[in-house]
């Protein structure tokens, strides 16, 4: 791994340059009259149809880190890593229920972030700031992990000892994100997703023929998982779950499914859609990416069944994240391996760009504006967001280069626990105003503290006294996902405190939304937020859904 594979490297470089060109050209794609508006820069003009949204959300949700970390988990532990499949089976049916309501209310009121909705719904800036801070905190380590995904590829390419390629990649990414906003990752997502589909289809058909078929892959992987892990004195894993870990598996899947569309970058993808039906239709089309994820998870077993990969992972300091890049290196001719590496690198750029935009939107709208400059003009907002998107990415870069990688991974683990704690305020708020705004704040704080402490107290297997060792911990006799335990606490506190506040007649905040606005189906691009009274009147029109607002 110390010498550079020039053929692979050239392919990666050429594709990177193509993507860079597309990223800059995106500023002219579906050109807006005035790009200096957060609706344009931060949400691509809210004009993406079914097709673009499918590529955008697919490129956004299935990140490079997923492509590296899921097979790494399968490589290291076996069946446990397949919770990612179970999770992606559940996520779209769940999201199909509430996402259209979130889209409608955001479109009617011109909300750009989930925290915008919370402020409008509960009339509480305290709650909306809590939601915004949680979103930013959960997103930043996620961006850092995209860089970790790129690093894994650079190591296998023979460029691991040098930080310059990573810095260049991120400067370029920051430049076109700043210029083109959400249009850049939306356009690049077409390239990313095409590369990923081709790479996975070829890998899943070709590699088993090299390894003696699926039967051989499963049996060899099973044998290696049974070997004793010197750290724990137990087997590394198994092709099946132990009955004790079934709860952990199921709660990880459910918790991740509930949390996914609480992430700001996922909601940004939703809000950029043109119509309500675009969201609903996409939920039935996005599982196609889940099939790809399932096949990518299986690459972990293929890697385990390849002696050269096992040797390479060991030589790389038992870094299972190298397993997929090493598998490509050993199985494919250099040019196609380069193609696969490029899929991972570009696969990191799309979500990193969207995440930085989403974090910038949150900061601008819900921290900068709500707390400091309430009268910021659209152009002013956009300039702030552009600057923040740059700072967020630079911060992620410093994170990855200056701190141990485990730091980013621990924070990402915490981010998953944290982001689920915004679910009650956002999703319950789509249906009811029953919860009291301050009860939600208190419940959120309690769940954040509990989740953080519980994660800190969880040691890694075989290393007593270590911290952030796993995302699951024993709660009431079962080992379950900490985020789910915190979520249950969150709901319980929210209900109890709401009952107390209602009994004490603590005043509610003003609610600027109207019931039928949650079903609104306005067509085309938004103009200005419509006054609540006008839409309320319009809601009485036809028998079916309310007529378009426009």
């Amino acid at each position, binding site marked *: 791994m110390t010498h550079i594979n020039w053929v692979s490297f050239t392919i990666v470089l050429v594709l990177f340059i193509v993507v860079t060109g597309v990223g800059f050209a995106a500023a002219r794609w579906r050109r807006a009259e005035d790009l200096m508006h957060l609706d344009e820069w931060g949400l691509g003009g809210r*004009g993406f149809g079914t097709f673009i949204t499918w590529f955008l959300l697919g490129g956004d949700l299935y990140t490079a880190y997923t492509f590296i970390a899921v097979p790494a988990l399968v490589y290291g532990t076996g*069946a446990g890593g*397949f919770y990612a*499949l*179970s*999770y*992606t*089976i*559940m996520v*779209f*049916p*769940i999201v*199909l*229920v509430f996402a259209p309501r979130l889209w409608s209310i955001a479109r009617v009121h011109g909300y750009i972030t989930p925290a915008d909705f919370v402020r409008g719904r509960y009339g509480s800036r305290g709650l909306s700031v809590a939601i915004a801070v949680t979103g930013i905190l959960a997103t930043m380590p996620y961006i850092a992990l995209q860089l970790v995904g790129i690093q894994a590829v650079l190591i296998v390419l023979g460029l691991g000892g040098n930080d310059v390629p990573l810095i260049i990649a991120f400067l370029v990414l920051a430049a076109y994100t700043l210029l083109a906003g959400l249009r850049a990752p939306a356009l690049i997502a077409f390239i990313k997703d095409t590369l990923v589909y081709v790479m996975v289809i070829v890998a899943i058909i070709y590699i088993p023929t090299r390894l003696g*078929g*699926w*039967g051989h*892959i*499963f049996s060899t992987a099973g044998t290696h998982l049974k070997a004793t892990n010197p750290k724990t004195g137990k087997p590394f894993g198994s*092709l*099946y*779950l132990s*009955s004790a870990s*079934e709860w952990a*598996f*199921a709660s990880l*899947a*459910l918790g991740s*499914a509930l949390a996914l569309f609480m992430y700001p970058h996922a909601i940004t993808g939703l809000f950029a859609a*043109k*119509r309500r*039906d675009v969201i*609903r239709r996409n*939920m*039935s*089309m996005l*599982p*196609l990416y*889940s*099939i790809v994820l*399932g096949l990518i998870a*299986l690459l972990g077993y293929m890697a385990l069944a390849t002696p050269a990969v096992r040797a390479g992972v060991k030589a790389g300091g038992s870094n299972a994240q190298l397993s997929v890049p090493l598998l490509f290196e050993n199985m494919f001719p250099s040019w196609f391996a380069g193609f696969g590496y490029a899929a991972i690198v570009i696969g990191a750029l799309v979500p990193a760009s969207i995440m930085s935009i989403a974090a910038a939107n949150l900061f601008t709208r819900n921290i900068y504006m709500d707390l400091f400059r309430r009268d910021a003009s659209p152009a002013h907002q956009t300039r702030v967001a552009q600057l923040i998107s740059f700072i967020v990415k630079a911060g992620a870069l410093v994170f990855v280069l200056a701190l141990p990688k485990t730091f980013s991974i621990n924070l990402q683990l915490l981010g998953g626990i944290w982001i689920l704690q915004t679910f009650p305020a956002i999703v319950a708020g789509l249906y009811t105003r029953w919860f009291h705004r301050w009860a939600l704040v208190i419940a959120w704080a309690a769940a954040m503290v509990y989740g953080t402490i519980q994660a800190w107290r969880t040691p890694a297997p075989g290393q007593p006294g270590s911290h952030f060792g796993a995302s699951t911990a024993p709660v009431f006799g079962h080992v379950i996902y900490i985020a789910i335990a915190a979520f249950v606490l969150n709901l319980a506190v929210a209900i109890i405190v709401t009952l107390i506040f209602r009994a004490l007649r603590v005043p509610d905040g003003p609610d600027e939304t109207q*019931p*039928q606005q949650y*079903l609104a*189906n306005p*067509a*085309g*691009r938004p103009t200005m937020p419509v006054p609540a009274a006008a839409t*309320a009147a319009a*809601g*009485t029109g*036809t*028998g*079916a*859904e*309310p*007529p*378009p607002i*426009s």
Partner: protein
Amino acid sequence: MAQPHHRTRSPLSAAIATVLLLISVVGAFWVPFYNRPTPKLGDFPFFYWYQLIWMPVTMVLCYLAFLLIRRPPEPAGAAAAPAGGPDATLSPDGGETK
């Protein structure tokens, strides 16, 4: 204020849609059911092919649910849509007028 029941989507189709979506969630959540090696499909143990097969099944279930809860076709009177389905009539820049 709006009429309380301004949506005439039948409660039955909403209920059916909910059940369709729940099937996927339960199917994935019920881990003890599929955490087993047999029956195999080709060389694939049950645990693996079961989860993979759910992806296309989920797509179908979500699509059926989408059809059920979609805005029903506009009654003849409201047919401002000269051609195509309920969303086929939009100009790219959003000129749906009623």
